[in-house]
């Protein structure tokens, strides 16, 4: 394991973008974790007059339409973004790997049905479906996470299915079958480890796009009303944009920096994992 991991890490960190992405991401995670310790009053506490410019009254990022500290909102928003991004991706990858593996390994009717389902999700306007889902079951952290996972798992399933389809006829799988390994064991202990690189890459990219989707939902007022998120901060400051640019600019920059860092990491993983796959 060590022999594989070290050269991989070296290849990953050789790209400056990967290193920058990783550092920025770690910093954002640190801010998200430390937010309740740094700002125990929470993001909804009113600290002064509304729409104070950054730098006035000891507020480095200014205040929003209700006089809440923008900096505290930004720190707490990181928690929501990361939580939604990571947990919805985990759900989607879990479901996608399971269904994609079964479809790719067994083929036949199961595969046909799965392909039709993924095609369905590719064609329909997924964001509108997500709006309907979240609005109907009431906006909350759980409905956001489950909703995003529900519209994104087919992407994973397609990739995993393709990998399994290509790998299931290889010699090492034949050998495992000959020595009497069970299907479950072949799927999870023989093929899956070999199919991991593309799954890791697509997973890292999905975190960023889930963060963007969450911000869009919150912007439309379909986020958890009890949580301060970057998207809801932008949505709430729409009327103030004309007089207080920072209320819309700063949360957007926070989203951009986070997603850019994640995409850099994803690109780096892709580069670092692909040389072995080209052989």
């Amino acid at each position, binding site marked *: 394991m060590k022999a594989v991991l070290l050269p991989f890490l070296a290849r990953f960190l050789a790209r400056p973008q990967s290193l920058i992405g990783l550092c920025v991401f770690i910093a954002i995670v640190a801010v998200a974790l430390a937010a309740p310790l740094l700002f125990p009053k929470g993001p909804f506490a009113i600290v002064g007059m509304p729409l104070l410019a950054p730098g006035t009254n000891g507020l480095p990022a200014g205040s929003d339409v209700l006089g809440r500290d923008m900096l505290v909102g930004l720190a707490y928003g990181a928690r929501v973004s990361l939580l939604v991004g990571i947990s919805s991706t985990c759900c989607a990858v879990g479901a996608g790997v399971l269904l994609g593996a079964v479809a790719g390994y067994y083929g036949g009717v199961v595969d046909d049905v799965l392909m*039709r389902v993924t*095609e*369905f999700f*590719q*064609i*329909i*306007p*997924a*964001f*509108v*479906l997500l*709006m*309907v*889902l979240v*609005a*109907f*079951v*009431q906006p909350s952290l759980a409905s956001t996470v489950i909703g995003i996972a529900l519209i994104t798992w087919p992407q994973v399933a397609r990739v995993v299915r393709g990998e399994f389809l290509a790998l299931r006829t290889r010699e090492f799988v034949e050998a495992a079958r000959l020595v009497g390994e069970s299907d479950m064991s072949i799927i999870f202990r023989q093929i899956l480890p070999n199919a991991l690189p593309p799954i890791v890459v697509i997973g890292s990219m999905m975190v*960023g796009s889930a963060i*963007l989707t969450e*911000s*869009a939902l919150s*912007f*439309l*007022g*379909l986020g958890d009303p009890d949580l301060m998120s970057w*998207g809801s901060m*932008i949505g709430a400051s*729409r009327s103030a*944009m*004309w007089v207080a*640019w920072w209320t*819309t*600019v700063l949360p*957007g920059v926070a*989203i*951009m920096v986070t*997603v*850019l860092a994640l*995409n850099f990491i994803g690109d780096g993983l892709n580069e670092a994992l692909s040389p072995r796959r080209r052989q």
Partner: protein
Amino acid sequence: MNRAAYIARRLLRTVLVTVAVVLVSFFLIRLAPGDAATVMAGQSGYADEALIQSLRAEYGLDQPLPVQLWKYVSAVARGDLGRSYERRQPVLDIILERLPNTLLLDGFALAVALAGGIALGALAARRPGSAGDAGVTALAMLFYAVPQFWLGMMAVLVFSVWLAVLPPFGIETMGADYTGLMRIADVARHMILPGMTLALYYMASYARLTRTQMIEVSGQDFVRTARAKGLSERQVARRHVLRNALIPIITYAGLQASILVGGTVLVENVFSWPGVGTLAYEAVTARDNPLLLGIFIVTAVLVSLFNLFTDIAYSIADPRVQLQ
């Protein structure tokens, strides 16, 4: 497989997707707490049990699930998407009234994105690794990392608040009552910011795709043949490379359509463009579930029809597809 069989198969897929959309919608209705009867009784102001029961009987909500499903499917097939809770009008009429505005905006955005994306991509592919090439790639990377609605708000900030050159909201100047050419010019001016916000994002992805395709096609044998028989670089690039590179872009435009709808919902809301997207937001805030669901059904059917259209266009552009 010949072209007729290919088109027939795609047509069948469109029908299946539509049926699936209606089935999914039927079960989505059941996700919401309470049913139509409790909502209507609540709106009437006196929600006693007898009224709810009589409403349930009236709307067939007390019948077994398969019967309700059949009624729902046949109603949708007749174009009956129910009535809006809030406006008390048929959902389909409300949506159709707003649809032309959305189609106008999306059509403009798609045209700008395709034209600009193909041009930029072809330019970037001419010298891979050059500053222009790197610029297009970097710009695309940046666009993928920002929420589209935020990009729209930044455009308002720059062009409407700071520079004050373009109108930030609506589809035309309120109270101006322009007619004829003046009105067209007015609408066009209002369309620039929302249209470009939508277009820039897809332009970036079309540029990337065109670039990759052109570099790939350039390496193929028939390009070498074209060069060997003495065609100029310009002719090779235009007639041999670009034409073949454009084929996958047709399919890509079809696949992007579903994403374009999501982007339209957000961008319309940023710019208060009176289309289906702002209607969806109004439905969410008014808790008008039938209207929101109707928007899902109508947009899903439109996107799958657009996909059918691009599939047919693809089969005409590339005869090899019939062998698949």
